[in-house]
């Protein structure tokens, strides 16, 4: 499947190469400006999906891991990464998809979490390893999330699946506003 890179989120101008920095350092600084198209405030680096950047001969290889198996943004993200690095003169760039170890929301950086919250999405807490054995059949008695707008803890989950696979839909009873929660997975 090919997706026109133009469908991706418009990129901020990539930073110029800092004096004395290597090609790889410059590549990482450019990648820090490539945003997730569905959460266009968090970069692919802060999201933790860029695992490695490697020089292979003339080429730059970016190792990327998907967040969800069926995430429809994956191909747009890959196209955006290639476009950003090529535009910065760092290419030719290739993407290498790496599934293992599986991405976890624990890899979202502190900066990424702060940006999610600022955007109105409650960032994920630590992944609950105990969920591996769910004999549970009712909605979990979750620790209430603080509303990203008014900080109230009087909130409830409306649906486990929100506007994208990675988010759940919540509501704040205090301010009456809905908000999203980036699921721990």
């Amino acid at each position: 499947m090919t997706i026109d890179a133009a469908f991706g989120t418009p990129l901020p101008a990539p930073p110029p190469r800092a004096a004395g920095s290597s090609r790889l350092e410059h590549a990482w600084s450019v990648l820090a400006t490539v945003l997730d198209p569905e959460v266009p405030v968090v970069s692919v680096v802060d999201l933790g999906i860029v695992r490695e950047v490697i020089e292979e001969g003339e080429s730059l290889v970016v190792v990327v891991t998907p967040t969800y198996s069926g995430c429809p943004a994956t191909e747009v993200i890959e196209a955006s990464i290639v476009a950003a690095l090529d535009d910065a003169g760092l290419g030719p760039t290739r993407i290498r998809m790496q599934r293992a170890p599986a991405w976890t929301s624990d890899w979202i950086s502190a900066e990424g979490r702060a940006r999610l919250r600022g955007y109105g999405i409650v960032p994920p807490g630590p992944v609950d390893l105990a969920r591996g054995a769910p004999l549970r059949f009712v909605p979990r008695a979750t620790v209430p999330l603080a509303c990203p707008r008014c900080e109230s803890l009087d909130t409830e989950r409306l649906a486990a699946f929100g506007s994208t696979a990675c988010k759940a839909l919540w509501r704040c009873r205090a301010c009456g506003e809905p908000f999203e929660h980036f699921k721990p997975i």
Partner: protein
Amino acid sequence: MQSITVSSHPSVQYLLRIGDTCLILAQRLAEWCGHAPIVEEDIALSNMALDLVGQARAVLTRAGELEGELGGARHGEDELAFLRDERDFRNCTLVELPRGDFAVTMLRNLAVAIFLKLLWQKLGGSSDGELAAIAGKAVKEASYHQEHAAGWVVRLGDGTAESEARLKAALDLLWPYIAEIFESDAVDAEAEAARLGPRWSDLRDDWRAEFAAVLAPAGLALPAERPFRSTGKSGRHSEHLGYVLAEMQHLQRTYPGGVW
């Protein structure tokens, strides 16, 4: 468009059973898009269909690579999805049955999610590194699917007289088809011998325990075993699969190689 012929090697067949089960259930769930009783469920079902399509793509890609590694013609994920005939699909019959009402959809989702979660857990230790990697991601998704379906099955079974009656009818309808999942054969035996993955019959006891644990608060119990066995995993399908494939394959068959 000419159909392709796929390797009959047991390892390829084993992967097709997994990939096709995910793919065909995804088609059935996608039918709810725009039709679910509430918008949140519309979104949830579409999201789960996407997860399943993603899992199917990964597993079918691996199946096609394996065909090549075994010395045969190698097929891509799109060829496997769009250019195989009905008899070459290896999904359990359960997932091709019509989506029915919301009770049928949720009960089937619960049955399949528990099964897939148990399967992915075992496949995490597969001798095939790529399959193990796919499983490591998919097991988290299946757990979410299970939690979602379990919540609805309890809510329906413990709900109104109408919802309770519909859930009971759904269990009556689906139960005979669930048995096929846990029937093992030569393909399973080969997969276990090659440490590719478990015999599906070995997942039966754990599946029954988890399924029963949800049925109980829903006011239902595991029904008795019945002699009927469906045979989708070996390519002999119900009358329903052809219609699913007609819709899914129509564009690629009519406009070969067409892209967005």
